[in-house]
């Protein structure tokens, strides 16, 4: 329990009063030491970036800062005062608030109610709502960040970016509880935003700096460097260093995070199939041919994907690219159009037909759509291709065990055992299991990847990238909806730009001839 850091004299009061200081924070879970003596300083009016791989202890640290986790040891100081945070309300009283990674708004309440939720103040008098006061309170918060949302709109009718604004407005309510500038923690605020929305968010973060301190957590190192003043890096539950953002490069941060010079080189390969294709001049029939596909949110989409090719689809929020992807898997109804896979018409009536035809789909919402959390790794992996573990109609446990163990080894999935519930694995390993689901039978011909690296850390990302390349190399046609433009550019052989439900442009992106993000953005808007 005791760490060398904790042994420091307690009475020492820091000379410059920091907005927040963490000393030697320790937290253990059964079998895991999540925090192993973390030190962190947040200065007044600065934006501090917090970087670290999954499992580095970021989320435990953040939870400790807002009172959701009780540390086993160490101290938290707020403005030179040692505090003990027992609950989220406690933290708010000390001026610490957090915007959670998964949005924490009640969808069926109004924006105003969400903003004041839990600290209604004069908005509720003796349990009775005073709607006018409440709207005024909410409006004040929204004004602070310059948002023009109707406070009485139901939250589930707002766009994602607007909800993010509501979320920030809500966190800023903690100002009412304390006379000091608050500390605002933003946990992965950009992971599901499109680039335009991210810009708006960054503008708001810079505004926040004028009256608050901000802790900004993101997996996208370029973002962290872009918006932050300083970046602190965690590794294995310890603080491993800090750098001023101005001097740092993503590669350097990355090195600190994984403890060695990892490469960003995974972007720069190209699938073997395409290279060989470019050498031969003969026109090939594409593996996937989509003609005039229309649905609720997209129209007249044409798309060709060759065997062994990775085609990225980019577009802003609302471009309809996710729905195209789901439609190809039979999970979204279509109104017109034809899809041909290897010369045979693809049945789009349901997911079963798509699976049977050798189409695989990795959904963006891994936790709710990608995996069945309480079920084992083995059962998740064999969920789709049941015949791979059966003889006739009967399940053969031994057959399943052999198969699953082979794939666990092949994809180097880090799991204690194939029988472990998948929800106990780290995000990257979960994603690998989800991918493996389509591979176990060896019959997948088209893979649709919807944000396959969302929420994964750098290391896990590289592994997923490597896997994608390998699959493409073996002839699988891949459609990729990437997490970022860089990812799309780096991974794809060709990029389709979608805008307002149509495929508007196609950009070739062969190895050595990659377009720049700016090229794409021009086409997207």
């Amino acid at each position, binding site marked *: 329990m005791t760490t060398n850091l904790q042994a420091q004299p307690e009475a020492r009061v820091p000379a410059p009063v920091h907005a927040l200081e963490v000393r030697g924070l320790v937290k253990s879970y059964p079998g895991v030491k999540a925090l192993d003596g973390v030190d962190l300083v947040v200065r007044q009016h600065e934006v501090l970036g917090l970087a670290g791989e999954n499992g580095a202890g970021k989320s435990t640290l953040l939870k400790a800062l807002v009172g959701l986790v009780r540390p086993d040891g160490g101290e938290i100081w707020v403005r030179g005062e040692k505090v003990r945070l027992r609950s989220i309300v406690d933290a708010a009283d000390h001026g610490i608030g957090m915007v959670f990674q998964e949005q924490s708004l009640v969808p*069926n309440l109004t924006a105003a109610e969400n903003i004041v*939720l839990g600290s209604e103040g004069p908005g509720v008098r003796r349990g009775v*709502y005073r709607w006018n006061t409440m709207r005024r309170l909410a409006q004040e918060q929204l004004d602070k960040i310059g948002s023009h949302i109707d406070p009485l709109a139901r939250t589930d009718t707002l766009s994602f970016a607007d909800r993010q604004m509501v979320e920030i407005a809500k966190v800023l309510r903690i100002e009412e509880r304390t006379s000091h500038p608050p500390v605002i923690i933003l946990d992965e605020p950009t992971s599901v935003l499109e680039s335009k929305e991210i810009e708006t968010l960054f503008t708001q973060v810079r505004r926040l700096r004028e009256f608050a301190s901000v802790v900004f957590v993101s997996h996208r190192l370029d973002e962290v460097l872009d918006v932050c003043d300083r970046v602190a890096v965690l590794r294995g539950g310890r603080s491993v260093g800090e750098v001023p953002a101005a001097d740092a490069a993503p590669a350097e941060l990355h090195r600190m995070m994984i403890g060695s010079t990892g490469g960003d080189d995974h972007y720069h390969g190209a699938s073997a199939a395409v290279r060989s294709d470019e050498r031969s001049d003969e026109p090939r029939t594409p593996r996937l041919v989509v003609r005039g596909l229309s649905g609720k949110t997209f129209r007249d989409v044409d798309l060709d994907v060759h065997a062994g090719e990775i085609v990225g689809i980019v577009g802003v929020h609302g471009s309809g690219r996710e729905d195209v992807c789901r439609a190809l898997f039979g999970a979204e109804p279509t109104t017109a159009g034809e899809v041909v896979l290897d010369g045979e018409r693809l049945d789009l009536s349901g997911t079963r037909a798509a699976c049977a035809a050798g189409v695989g789909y990795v959904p963006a919402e891994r936790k709710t759509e990608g995996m069945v959390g309480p079920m084992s790794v083995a059962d998740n992996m064999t969920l789709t291709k049941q015949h791979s573990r059966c003889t006739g109609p009967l399940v053969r446990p031994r057959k399943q065990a052999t198969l699953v163990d082979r794939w666990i080894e092949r994809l180097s999935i880090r799991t204690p055992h194939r029988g472990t519930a998948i929800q106990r694995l780290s995000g990257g390993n979960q994603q690998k299991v989800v991918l493996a689901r389509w591979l176990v039978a060896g019959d997948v011909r088209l893979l649709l990847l919807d944000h396959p690296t969302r929420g994964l850390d750098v290391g896990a990302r590289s592994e997923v990238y490597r896997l994608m390349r390998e699959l493409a190399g073996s002839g699988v046609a891949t459609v990729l909806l990437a997490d970022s433009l860089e990812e799309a550019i780096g991974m794809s052989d060709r990029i389709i730009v979608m805008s307002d439900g*149509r495929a508007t442009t196609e*950009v070739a992106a062969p190895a050595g001839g990659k377009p720049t993000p700016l090229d794409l953005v021009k086409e997207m808007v």
Partner: protein
Amino acid sequence: MTSPTEAGRGAGRATGTEADGDVVPAQRPRPRRGVSLRDAGPPIALVVIFGVFAVLSPDFRTVSNVQNVLDAAAVLAVVTCGISFVLMMGSIDLSSPGIMGASAITVALLVANNRNDNDLGVLGVVVAVLLAAGLGCLSGLALVVLKVPSFMTTLGISAVGLGVATLMFAGVQPNVSDTMLQGWAVERFLGLAYLTWIALACVLVGWLVQRYSRLGRYAFAIGGAEEVLALSGVKVAPYKVAVFTMAGAFYGLAGVMVTSQLGAGLVQAGRGYDFSAITAAVVGGTLLIGGRGGILHSTVGVLLVTVLTNGLVQVGVSPYWQGGVQGLIVVAAVAAAVIPQRRRNQVTK
């Protein structure tokens, strides 16, 4: 339109977007306040069904029958007021038969009656409602403390309530001789029995609670996203207990109303009200998953169910078929509400 494949072959650049004429607007949610179109379904159905019966049966369209329908809806409306809040939270409540039985016997024994010398009048009603609220509170406590699903806690409390009622019943029917309580069922104001006005008052109170009280709004929010409330520093448990307590109080009042109608305290005062209240709430548009609907929705549902029951008798449908027709209409009503918003890959539990 140029095939994207060809377009992309030549250069890394686009051949341009020519689709500027009729761009499909992306489906983006628009900020919205107030009533949605979906909420209009049940009231329309009510009007239609009322119209159909009015055409079919001359007895149905008389003023006295409309009064009769409203009077008949009174007890169910009060029960439904209570259950609506529970359903809004996404929980379920099967405790009304027991709680109503207990409160019916209690009130019959506390006001002027043939069993003892009590004559507490309104105070007796208050005590009965408080007892009912206490039983409701117990099911809420069992939910949040023992973490037992409300389905079971309320089922258990229902049995407990029936037991308590049977204990107090002690073999001799308590008959009410209290003039006030008897008057509620008999005396009329503006053509409607006092009980009906009480039910209307309950609906109003329920609506105010739902719209203007923290309890009501939080009940709504718990159905929407319980975990978010916790993250916002709201302790959910007390509100859950409070909602069950309030529901219990409504059932208690309903038990008193049944006692007033029957002139006697019956252990079976609440028999059947559990499922009919859920039916009414659901038909009115309150979803069982929580976070939707409300008191007004449920009240429309109550009227729908009552009109249906009454109308079927009036047009001469065999009493055996009546339950079946009601069942069909419930399924149809929900289907009509659900089908327009069907999605692929939709989760239906």
